[in-house]
């Protein structure tokens, strides 16, 4: 398998050398060609800076970035065969949709008839044929998003970078676009690098993902690996609805004295057990009910499948689980 993008110990610091802001702080990663790669993390974790390092809008202060094996340290954005879908779409307001989509071909010197034909093809791909004459200001958020996508794809980039492209859409549209993006990526066989702070989006769309925290990669792996075996407390906290158990509680529940994660769906309610607590919150989810039990200082959630008895708020209960469901992890 070919490597599309490679980060070799990459740093991007801002501000004075004496007190730098470490936006990207020693990142190593490899993105396989044709994969859907997500960069997940809270705001300020360095994921967007990493994306901008690939597109060339940021220069690394250390390390090396390779795109298809080539060092791009000295390559300006306009000479990189990657294209970006911007968070705010960045459509040119003074051009109609067709000219927006054909822009990349226009600046490369392609003739009008030819580039308009290609633009129409791209608009058809994103289901916006017949919208070519409109101005971006006349489109809805979802439509603008598609134009931005078509405009980036018309150049036939080797890597498509997407910077929180679905952030501004409402939930229903976002879910529809998630499916569509995923289908498009499979059909085109392109490498997608997708930045998001939404863990569900990252888990459901990506082939593999990197979880960022304070400029570093906390964990990199498939969605299942990240979800089932979070490497650190941070990953477990951020990615999942997983329970994070402090060492004392893990020990009390029969495990070693270490930080551990425990998935709510692997957690059962039990009348008696080593530790019991009070039910403090109930959330009906349709397929089940999420019951939050406060055990000492830790809140633990258990997913009670539909049809099983649900305790009332304030009741005292204990929890039980199979020991192999307990996943041990690092403290940071």
């Amino acid at each position, binding site marked *: 398998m070919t490597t599309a993008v490679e980060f070799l110990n990459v740093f991007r610091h801002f501000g004075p050398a004496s007190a730098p802001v470490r936006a990207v702080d020693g990142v190593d990663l490899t993105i396989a060609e044709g994969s859907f790669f997500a960069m997940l993390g809270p705001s300020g974790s360095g994921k967007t800076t990493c994306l901008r390092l690939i597109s060339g809008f940021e220069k690394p202060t250390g390390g090396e970035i390779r795109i298809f094996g080539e060092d791009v340290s000295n390559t300006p954005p306009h000479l990189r065969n990657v*294209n970006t879908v*911007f968070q705010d779409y*960045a459509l040119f*307001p*003074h051009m109609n949709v067709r000219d927006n989509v054909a822009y990349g071909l226009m*600046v*490369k010197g392609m003739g009008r008839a030819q580039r308009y034909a290609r633009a129409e093809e791209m608009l058809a791909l994103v289901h916006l044929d017949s919208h070519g004459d409109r101005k971006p200001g006349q489109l809805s958020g979802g439509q603008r998003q598609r134009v931005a996508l078509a405009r980036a794809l018309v150049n036939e980039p080797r890597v498509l970078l997407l910077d929180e492209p679905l952030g501004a859409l409402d939930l229903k549209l976002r879910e529809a676009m998630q499916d569509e993006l995923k289908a498009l990526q499979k059909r085109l066989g392109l490498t997608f690098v997708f930045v998001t702070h939404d863990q569900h989006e990252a888990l459901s769309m990506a082939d593999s993902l990197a979880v960022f925290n304070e400029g570093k990669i906390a964990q990199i792996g498939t969605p299942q690996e990240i979800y089932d075996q979070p490497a650190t407390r941070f990953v477990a906290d951020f990615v999942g609805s997983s329970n994070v158990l402090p060492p004392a509680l893990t020990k009390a529940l029969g495990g070693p004295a270490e930080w551990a994660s425990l998935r709510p769906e692997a957690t059962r309610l039990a009348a008696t057990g080593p530790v019991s607590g009070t039910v403090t919150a109930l959330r009906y989810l349709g397929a089940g009910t999420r019951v939050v039990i406060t055990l000492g200082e830790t809140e633990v959630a258990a997913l009670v499948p539909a049809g099983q008895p649900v305790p009332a708020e304030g009741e005292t209960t204990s929890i039980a689980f199979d020991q192999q469901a307990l996943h041990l992890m690092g403290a940071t």
Partner: protein
Amino acid sequence: MTTSAILPARGLADRLTALFWRRPKVLLALLLTPPLLWLGVVYLGSLAALLLQSFYSIDEFSGVVKEEFTLKTYGELFRPSNFDILVRTVTMAALVTLACAALAFPIAYFAARYAKGHWKAAFYLGVMLPLWSSYLVKVYAWKLILAKEGILGWAAEQTHTGWIISGLLSIPGLEGSSLSTSPIGTFMVFVYIWLPYMILPMQAALERVPNSMLEASADLGATRGQTFRTVVLPLALPGIIAGSIFTFSLTLGDYIIPQIIGNSANFIGMAVYQLQGTAGNIPLAAAFAVVPILIMLIYLAIARRMGAFDAL
């Protein structure tokens, strides 16, 4: 205890706010009436009087204004001596506008794209500072700077570049004993005086172009030059047009700078000043004054047709 759903009005302010909420147009009318009265009576009224006067003519023997509608006065504008004034003024205004646009763009671009914090404050101060001192003081200061014994001539002598100035002053039509008595001097001072009026709207327009727009252009493969032509310039055009309206119309109407600096050749403003004063030919003065208005209307129509306001 039960609390009413409607709170009691505390006084006049509450009742007025309630009135404005029920009838939003009342507030609008209260806000707009005074300025509209002022604009309508003072501004549009005087403009109408001006237009009216320009259709009158003057009796050549008695010097009395004949209050009959005629186009004779407008015809007089095309007499060679008068037409020269129009051509000279419009040419000067166009050149001043072009020079202001060329000088202002880099400054406005820097201020809009790169300047932050202290640099931004320094920019505003630098651009506005000249506007705080009297216009006349600045013009006379320039007369001294450009004079034969002035600092510019002195600096040119010290750096052995005096031949540049003498070269410029020997160009036919631009002759003068020094820059302060040549049309080149008039041009330089016009550019200096009106430059802030070009920089500020341009900077405001450039500030509204998001950075991501420029990044998107580069991302799609455009060079800096292509980005400038196809993205920056069209988006900044309303600002450039706004600035050029200032520099163009201010130059068209000014009558002080060409009086103090240059070879005393007549400009529209000076002609108006002389005709309504010493000559007492109000109709011709009015006709002269209508010319800049017409030119500006034509200019705006062309700008609009070229799509300058599409990005608004």
